[in-house]
């Protein structure tokens, strides 16, 4: 586990010793933005999809709904 954590950190800090390479800032930054947006929409879809499914599945009027222990006993 430590290897997986320490290796990339070492690799990244080692960058400081080498001269930087020419790159296209615009491409790098916009690519990062698109990747971040993809992840954001995936998380957003998973979280909101789960909530929508929960509300739909566990509503009282769902024909699969079961009474809770408290509802069966009529007291809570």
């Amino acid at each position, binding site marked *: 586990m430590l290897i997986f954590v320490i290796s990339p950190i070492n690799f990244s800090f080692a960058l400081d010793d080498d001269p*930087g390479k020419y790159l296209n*800032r615009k491409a*790098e930054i916009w690519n990062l933005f698109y990747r971040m947006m993809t992840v954001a929409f995936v998380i957003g879809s998973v979280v909101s999809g789960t909530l929508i499914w929960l509300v739909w599945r566990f509503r009282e009027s769902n024909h699969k709904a079961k009474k809770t222990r408290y509802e069966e006993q009529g007291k809570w």
Partner: protein
Amino acid sequence: MNTHSNWPEWIYVGVVVALLIYVGAEAWNIERIIEHIPSDAEIIQVTGQQWFWTFEHEDGTKEIGELHLKKDHAYKFEVVSKDVIHSFNIHDYVVLVDAVPGRVNTVWFSPDESGEFDIQCREYCGLIHYNMRAKLYVDDDKS
């Protein structure tokens, strides 16, 4: 006693946490790569003051309100301010860094297209902030 299986919850939490770790790591890594300056970058001193930009090349050449650079060369800007906070921005090359009094902020880029580009202050700095502009001329070495 709750006896139902809760592995779907753990998978759900794991996926979300993994994605968030990926977001943090990727952003951190790209930022490091972008900030890594090539050794042959020419240093340009950029001074912001109400309400114009001054540029000084390594050979001592000074320019006011315009900046002449060569295509496919790396340039490191050392950005300072003489009065209030400004922000040095070359929109077309996604260069943006604050000019703060008493501080030297750096940013580097390499123009890959020749032509004229706008330089603009991006931090409200007073009455004529809207017109605190300069022109970047990128010249092709070959021509």
